[in-house]
């Protein structure tokens, strides 16, 4: 191998007299040129260095790759809280679309949790229950008069079973009518001076999500989910950069070099991985900080450091397999649209895994999923951050399965390179 390659990392084509003759060398066999004694690693290093330098050259691209995930996460958080869509954050009243004699029942309806329910007139409560309101209601004529006279009355609620807000609004309405009746009974009890306390059962309500334990639970799931989603973005960036280098003719030039195909693919993958890790630094710092903070409060400083290392290992494994996926996608794809489609599919899959395994959490007794690449390491990392020491061993299993998948994908990408080499070099 030439000194120029070792010293500067630049790549020069070997001299003709040391160029390997494909027919005389078995596949995978090292060539016997002047650099034969150096071994294969410098070549891998040279390829990776070349790819990385090409990536570092565009500082704007690096900055964009760094801030795009941050902006995206900030947008999701901002939209969620601005629309009060985060569960438990809704403070505005539930809207009830009332069909029928609203005026004749206004006095009664205004007593139903006035701070939590708002009644609006509607011509079609069934439709408006899905359109402008949380729930629809059909009231009879003269509801106020009936209630005042103690006559039977009934209302119909139209709720959407799948909408949590609809079900909550319906519960408030039912509770409101129940409270009205209870108040009437209590009043009657006082008038008759009946012995005994009207209301016996009082409640002390605790929202466990405000406890330290729940905060740790949510934090562990959230940091794991963010690590997975951040890694998933490597697919698009890796594949797009490969496409770009292909369009510029740089890939064709590299394919003419006497390198094993898998080494070429691995070098590119490692370079993209390095760039991906570099651009993920802000997100990594945030997530590792959160993981350390939640673990330190429970188990101490040493456990916090271990948690940071565990999360970093989880991200590195995920980033490696995502870079491998991007490598394969970038190699197989012919157009940017294909890259976008494959990247979107991976992101959707990652989001599903993040919501089910990281945020919601799979049952701890489900061990089969521990061996599944990506899913296993996400599940185990979450469990370890929650203070389950046994999950550290499962993390190793997850890392092994994930890295195995990455190796397979790199191998596959290398084979795709090989097909193009055959075309370019006219080999049999």
């Amino acid at each position, binding site marked *: 191998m030439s000194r120029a390659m070792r010293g500067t990392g630049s790549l020069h084509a070997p001299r003709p007299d040391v160029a390997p003759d494909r027919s005389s060398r078995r596949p995978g066999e090292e060539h016997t040129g002047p650099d034969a004694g150096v071994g294969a690693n410098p070549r891998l290093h040279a390829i990776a260095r070349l790819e990385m330098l090409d990536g570092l050259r565009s500082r704007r*691209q690096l900055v*964009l790759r760094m801030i795009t995930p941050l*902006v*995206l996460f900030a*947008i*999701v958080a901002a*939209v*969620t809280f601005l*629309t009060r869509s985060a*569960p*438990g954050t809704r403070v505005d009243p539930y809207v009830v679309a009332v069909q029928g004699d609203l005026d004749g029942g206004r006095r*009664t309806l205004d007593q139903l949790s006035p701070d939590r329910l708002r009644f609006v007139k509607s011509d079609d409560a069934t*439709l408006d*229950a899905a359109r402008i309101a949380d729930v*629809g209601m059909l009231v009879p004529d003269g509801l106020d008069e009936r209630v005042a006279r*103690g006559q*039977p009355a*009934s*209302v*119909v*609620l*139209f*709720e*959407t079973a*799948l909408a949590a807000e609809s*079900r*909550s609004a319906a519960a408030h*309405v039912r509770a409101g*009518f129940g409270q009205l*009746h*209870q108040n*009437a*009974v209590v009043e*009657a*009890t006082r008038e*008759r001076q009946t012995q005994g306390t*009207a209301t*016996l*059962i009082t*409640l*002390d309500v*605790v*929202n*466990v*999500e*405000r*406890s330290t*334990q*729940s905060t740790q639970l949510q934090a562990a799931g959230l940091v794991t989910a963010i690590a997975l989603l951040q890694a998933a973005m490597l697919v*698009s960036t890796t594949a*797009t950069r490969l496409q*770009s*280098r292909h*369009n510029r003719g740089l890939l064709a030039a590299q394919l003419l070099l006497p390198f094993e195909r898998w080494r070429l693919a691995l070098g590119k993958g490692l370079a993209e991985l390095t760039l991906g890790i570099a651009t993920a630094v802000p997100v990594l710092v945030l997530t590792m900080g959160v993981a350390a903070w939640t673990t330190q409060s429970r188990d101490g400083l040493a456990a916090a450091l271990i948690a940071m290392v565990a999360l970093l290992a989880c991200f590195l494994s995920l980033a490696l397999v995502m870079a491998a996926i991007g490598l394969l996608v970038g190699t197989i794809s012919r157009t*940017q*649209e294909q890259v*976008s*489609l494959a990247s*979107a599919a991976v992101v*959707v899959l990652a989001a599903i895994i993040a919501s089910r395994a990281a945020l919601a959490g799979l049952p701890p007794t489900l061990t089969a999923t521990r061996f599944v690449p990506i899913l296993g390491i996400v599940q185990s990392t979450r469990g370890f951050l929650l203070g389950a020491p046994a999950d550290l061993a499962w993390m190793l299993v997850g890392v092994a399965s994930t890295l195995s998948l990455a190796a397979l994908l790199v191998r596959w990408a290398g084979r795709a390179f090989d097909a193009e080499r055959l075309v370019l070099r006219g080999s049999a």
Partner: protein
Amino acid sequence: MTAEAPAHRRHTRAAAAPAADAGSVSALEAGRIIASSTFRDTARRRGSWTTTLLTGVLFAVLIISGGSVSERLQERAEQISFRVSVDGDRRGGQRLLDQLATDELRVESSTDAATDVTNSRSAVGIRLPDRVDERIDRNEAVELMIFYRGGANTSREAYNNLLLRLQEIELARIDRAVDVGPAVQVEEQQVRRDERVNRLQFARILAALAAILCLGVVSSVAAVFGQSNERRSLEPLLLLPFNRTILAAGTTAGALPVAILQLVAAIALLVFSSALPVIGLSLSWSTVAQVLALSLVGVALLGALACSSGSLAGVMGGGSDDAVSVGDFFALPFVAVGILLFLRPAFPTSPLTSALPIIGPSLLIRDGAGAELSILNAVIAVVTTVAWCALLIRAAARRLDAERAVTRSIR
């Protein structure tokens, strides 16, 4: 080259028109020439078309699987029951627990109800004090500690059901002592399989998905420009004696039909998938046709906006990877609008919101597909979206101008 030579005149269809003919080519003709060249280049790529269809298939599969899951969840939600963990003096409160147990509330013993609820093993938890039944019999007040997860829908619903059940228990006990008129009876009916409602809900999902699909359009158009930079096919255009705005507008117009068609094809797949019985929307084919027809204007506007954004990103980018990175960043507002419409499906339509970029066309899709279209808001959305596109193209043109100054050595 002279204007009289017939052979040269036949080449006027190509992008490099002879300088002597520049004055006879109108701006519109110049834009048309550039646009047709770009259109042929983008339409020729079969990979783009297959990818478009596959993108639509991907989202259609998501819709179908989500719809079929929702259909099963709908049935489960109507018979949903919640696990209630109880710790404390269970023996002393057994009668109360027996009264609490219903089809919806499954009362089960636990060593730590709070932990069960925290770890999502139960939807809600109760900690009983000592001798609850005995104290109730003596008409003494008892305080129950209730645990629930405020951020979880199931837990909140279980909590609501528990409160209602406790209220019923209290009323049943008190009612025996006094004579009061009956409570207002509340009958609950589930809203389902109503085509109007289903159409409305589908229209909301469609608008959100259309905004998110624009992410691919922005990246795709940005990549077209990026690849033009890499292949140096943009520089000959810059040497033409055409207004920079015409260059940018013509190139964008050339990419526009393919971008819009891609978006329309994906949306059409989604709309047709809504007619499948497995999804449970029960939309008739006539409704499907109406939804598709009325949403096309909004889809075209969104596609134009995405194409213009992609053009600006492509012009700002160096190579295709750089252009796509910029395009991904410029596509974030589209993602934000998609998330907004997912989380707030009933986002209000007004002249103000119709005038906002991305939001206006998305609301046009939603209201058109949901049969709630307002002509005034629709006109506002169309006019303002065209204006926003013009602004973006103008910005791209200014970016082109800097490169022209370099390539033509203009002071």
